[in-house]
């Protein structure tokens, strides 16, 4: 026993010394964790990417295709830290090149509580909405270089808003989380920051758990709605005149179902693992569409739209560092209005075409900080089918990132 207590004293002395030095090393002094993500690609298309469209969907946000040839993807600068014992804060700057100019966009800037008690969390600021599954993930965490068609068609790739989120995690072994969001409603696919800057709402419920030691799953149901005023989508000019820009004003409702299933032998993801993912979205819109800068008189139509889309994907890591993935996308729309010509001008005529796309990707991650990806798309978004080849790199520097399930 004597030996033990001497040991213990020595140990405590050591511990006092080393926990001080550890605190400094691990928290990097008092500085936030900083990381930089570098992305770039080489792209080859059969069709002209400028001609790209999704018939039946008004495109906006970042829905366009990457330029052909060499190009930079989003660079990301991420800073995060616990603010104090009550709050966590995070800032993500996206830096991108658009037509020769460097643009900086505030992608995320939010604070979040670290446990108010009773499983309640409040988040405020600019953040990725919890609608759908992939929406909450940064582009660098995606399994394919591009967003699923349904995200491109409905959200302009990602649903981001300024606002608040309230969520509650149930005290059960089964993962059960419900939450609500209220947003400003200014960014695509909302618009106009209506209702005095409270134009969008969302609700979500998520369930998840394990089946044995090798399987885990998550299912989510979510709903997003907005009172949209003057949402603009991509415009085009007629014979040298002013650019006609289609705008939508009215109600927009999106319902979503997402399912994710992961498998790894013995739950050990390092050697082999499989990830299956499925999401379904349905959007209903009711209001008017106007072509800004048309006429006079300005061309307008009533508009009642229903757009649905889903994708399913499987990504298999067949040996350490190497993965292969398959994805299939499908969209459908049924839009009606008082003036079919104006609807067609706004891109809301489905032209008798159901967009679909098949993708195949391989990637190699030398370490968890670097990834090189090759992807092929057979893209039938519109009548001219396109073959797309992407070669991409995604690398992260700095703080060790952690990724959501």
């Amino acid at each position, binding site marked *: 026993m004597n030996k033990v207590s001497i040991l213990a004293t020595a140990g405590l002395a050591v511990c006092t010394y080393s926990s001080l030095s550890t605190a400094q090393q691990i928290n990097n002094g008092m500085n936030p964790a900083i990381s930089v993500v570098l992305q770039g690609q080489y792209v080859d298309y059969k069709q002209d990417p400028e001609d790209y469209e999704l018939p039946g969907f008004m495109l906006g946000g970042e829905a366009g295709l990457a330029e052909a040839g060499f190009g930079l993807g989003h660079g990301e600068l991420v800073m995060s830290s616990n603010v104090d014992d009550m709050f966590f804060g995070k800032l993500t700057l996206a830096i991108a090149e658009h037509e020769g100019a460097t643009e900086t966009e505030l992608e995320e800037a939010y604070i979040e509580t670290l446990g*108010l008690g009773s499983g309640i969390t409040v988040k405020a600021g600019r953040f990725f909405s919890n609608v759908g599954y992939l929406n909450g993930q940064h582009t660098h965490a995606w399994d394919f270089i591009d967003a699923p068609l349904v995200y491109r068609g409905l959200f302009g790739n990602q649903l981001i808003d300024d606002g608040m989120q309230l969520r509650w995690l149930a005290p059960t072994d089964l993962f059960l989380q419900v939450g609500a969001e209220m947003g400003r409603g200014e960014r695509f696919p909302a618009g106009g920051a209506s209702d005095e800057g409270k134009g969008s709402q969302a609700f979500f419920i998520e369930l998840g758990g394990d089946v044995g030691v090798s399987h885990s799953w998550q299912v989510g149901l979510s709903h997003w709605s907005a009172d949209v005023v003057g949402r603009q989508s991509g415009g085009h000019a007629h014979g040298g005149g002013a650019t006609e820009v289609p705008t939508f004003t009215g109600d927009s409702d999106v319902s979503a179902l997402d399912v994710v299933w992961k498998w790894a032998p013995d739950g050990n993801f390092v050697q082999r693992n499989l990830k299956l993912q499925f999401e379904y979205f349905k959007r209903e819109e009711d209001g008017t569409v106007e072509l800004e800068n048309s006429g006079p008189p300005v061309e307008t139509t009533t508009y009642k739209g229903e757009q649905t889309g889903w994708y399913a994907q499987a990504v298999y890591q067949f040996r350490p560092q190497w993965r292969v993935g398959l994805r299939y996308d499908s969209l459908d729309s049924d839009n009606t209005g008082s003036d079919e010509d104006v609807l067609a001008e706004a891109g809301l005529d489905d032209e008798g075409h159901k967009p679909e796309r098949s993708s195949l990707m391989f990637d190699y991650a030398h370490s968890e900080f670097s990834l090189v990806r090759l992807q092929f798309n057979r893209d039938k978004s519109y009548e001219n089918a396109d073959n797309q080849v992407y070669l991409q790199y995604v690398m992260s520097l700095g703080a060790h990132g952690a990724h959501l399930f």
Partner: protein
Amino acid sequence: MPYIKSLIVICLLCVALPSQAALNIFACEPEWASLSQEIGGEKLSIYSATTAKQDVHSIQARPSLIAKMRRADLVVCTGAELEAGWLPLLLQRASNRKVQPGQLGYFMAAEHVERLDVPQVLDRSMGDIHAGGNPHVHLDPYRLLIIAQLLNKRLGAIDPSNAAFYQARLEDFQTRWQAAINRWQAQAQPLKGLSVVTHHKDWRYLLDWLGMKAVATLEPKPGLPPNASHLAKLKKQMAEQSVAMVIRTAYQEARPSKWLSGKTAIPAVQLPYTVGGSAKASDLFGLFDETLALMLEASGQ
């Protein structure tokens, strides 16, 4: 007088009742689940987030773990960045103030003992190295003892009504553990001075304790899987150097060490590494018993 008696009984019940509900322990690794069990016994309800067959460097921050952490009274993990890819997310998503860094419910075992190989220079070209030094501390029985003492203190602080219970169990554990250390050290004498090749630097503290030497790793850099050119180099190195064995855990791929063993006739051994890593390693005592037995067998002693 009888009513005073019943009052005392009621008061005792009042004190005793809250402690009826066992403390929920969320252990990141099986070794900490097992150590908590030694000290807390039936007063704790313990959940281990991982098994001996999983590489804890890369665990998914999956929904079931978030749900478990939501209800935890104490999170016992290795820390020192070992769980950097998943633990911060669980803490953030679990909405549980009790277990946030700085709170009593947050206990990072490796951060309470001196760690070896704290890098002087941090650069990722050296692989996925941990700024706080090698975190795999549990295979040094002396460090484990220090951690046991601190864990006992922490349990007593969170659950004062059972502090004496934890203290008594700790003392019992210490006596048995010290006796076991003496036995293991006597047993392990023949291993002293031997050189080994390890898959990853998981074994740093075990080898340090036993006076053994790791001359190389199968991983070309920490966190990178073994590759053919590196293994070929090792084969050459092992021909020139006397190496007693190639060791790996239950969660690491067997092929590289078996290949090397086949080419060099040096035995490849799978050691339990943590509790549950083999049938006999069913608790911390079994873990060390089995580890030493397998190493002695492989070294031909």
